[in-house]
């Protein structure tokens, strides 16, 4: 198979690196609400892994990893998760984005705040990742 560089070294190295970057990205995302890190940083790492695949393995093969035409949909979905969490708290009787009122049963207010931030961060991660991929896809042209 023809890749942009044509070099098997780059191809093999990239294939090894992509999953590692993704795991670091997930780690950064999951630790965001109580240690350095968070949705934006995690999303950037996840996007970097996809973009590395785009550059090293070629634009066609890397579509299997993440298709270019789906980026905008996931980008909107991620932001909807963020805004929807706020709205859920609003509808459950609290103020907008007041996690204490999230309709999740069996959790203390403190725990709800903890999980509420994680839900928000997941939306941020999704949006940052897909938006960055969409921007670079437009530049690469795929």
């Amino acid at each position, binding site marked *: 198979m023809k890749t942009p560089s044509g070099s098997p070294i780059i191809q093999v190295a990239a294939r090894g690196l992509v999953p590692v970057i993704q795991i670091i990205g997930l780690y950064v995302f999951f630790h965001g609400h109580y240690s350095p890190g968070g949705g934006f940083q995690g999303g950037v790492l996840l996007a970097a892994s996809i973009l590395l695949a785009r550059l090293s393995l070629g634009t066609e093969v890397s579509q299997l990893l993440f298709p270019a035409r789906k980026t*905008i*949909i996931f980008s*909107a*979905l991620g*932001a*909807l998760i963020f*805004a929807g969490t*706020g*709205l859920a708290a*609003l509808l459950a009787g*609290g*103020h*907008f*984005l*007041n996690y*204490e009122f999230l309709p999740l049963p069996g959790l203390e207010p403190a725990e709800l705040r903890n999980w509420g931030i994680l839900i928000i961060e997941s939306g941020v991660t999704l949006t940052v990742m897909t938006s960055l991929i969409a921007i670079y896809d437009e530049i690469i042209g795929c």
Partner: protein
Amino acid sequence: MNPIQIPLLIPVTFLFASLLTPLAGLLGRSWAHLVSLAGAVFVFFLSLKGLGAALAEGPLRYYVSGWLPPMGIEFVLDPLAGFLEVIITGMTVLVLIYARKSVEIENPDKAVPFYTLTMLLMTGLSGMVITGDLFNLYVFLEISALAGYALLAIGGKRAPFSAFRYLTLGTLGAGFYLMGLVFLFMTTGTLNMADMSRMLPLVNGSFTVTTGLILIILGAGLKMGLFPLHTWLPDAYTNASSAATSLIAPVGTKVAAYIMIRMLIISGFPPLIELLTWVAAAGIIAASILAIAQSDIKRMLAYSSVANIGYIALGITLANPLAFIGAMLHILNHALMKAVLFFAAGGIFIKMGTRDIFQLRGLPKKMPFTAGAMLIAVFSMVGIPPTGGFFSKIYLIFGAIEAGTWFFVAVILISTLLNFVYFFRVIQTSFFKPYENGGTTDDDVKYESMEMDEMSPGMLVPTLIISVVIILVGLFNGAIVDKVITPGHPWFSG
């Protein structure tokens, strides 16, 4: 619905609409249009209800996420903010109705991004109006600015170029605002607007505060296109699609003017605004003269926007109740008139294929309703009673008389004459250019063969609605001033 949630729901509904529009766009362009229109209509009714509640029971306050000010972010809907919200959301509804056909003809493949960006722009603008927190205002400013750059880049061949110029200057404006805010925050230690207005008298005369205020006003001036910071405006308005221009021209610059009003109210109208009055007066005259020099109708309207921003800035900085009422009324009137004129310019370009004002011969024969609506808007622009524009100008003149500044009275009167010159060129060519039947030149033959060919109903109806509203605003201006503008007034509401 609980009226206490209205201040929050106004920007959040736009945010949801901007996220749902691209998803609806997967089903088809008309679904995207429907979602964005539904969002805008809902927010318009929210704004009306919010304004009513604010007038009846005083400002509505909402504490985001339950954190109390001055630590948390506060959304405040007072009569002034409600007035602005009603104007900008009402304009959005009408522009979206107009945009369906207009975008379909001008940029069909960019329809879904257009509706999405419109909703995102309105998230930013309505948030800027409603927020009670100065840093939150900056965040909304950036949201609206980024959406605005992209929106103005959809259009003709040169649109991305002029949008890029707007981007460089607009970013500079936002940067000035942020830098000025840092200076104010350094001195007062608060970002809440109400808190800030209590703190600032305590540090009166501080050099840091003065510098901060100058930077913020400079930033707002860049965003509102105040002369001589207007250079991005004519190109951006001329090259963008007509739907985008007719949204941003009436709405975008007004919200920047509102930031200036808010900052001046917070800082208690410092003496340095006297200089600003002179700048505004210079802008009115210079932009009117530049408008006379244009032959492209959209470019002429853009320069006329710069002149009208000058009226608004003049009214604010004269700092007396009558001039303030004039400025607020002019925000309403100018939004209405500019929307009609840009709507008409877009329709004329589609049907007659020209934007040159000297090629408009036969406009009333070909597009009688558009020509009529345009005539009303032009009358209002020049200030002929009973249209709305007359009353805002008369309040501005009374305000200038009350301030004892006869020079500015003369400026307003002279600029009215200049308005007359550049708008009646359009009327003269289209209505009164002598046309004896049986002429032999190409132009005469073209005129003879002209059939009635009005723009499509979807574009015509919003144009006619607004032109009727212009006359209604003129007839009922007393009620608007007494019931809505006066309670929102810093000198009466304390």
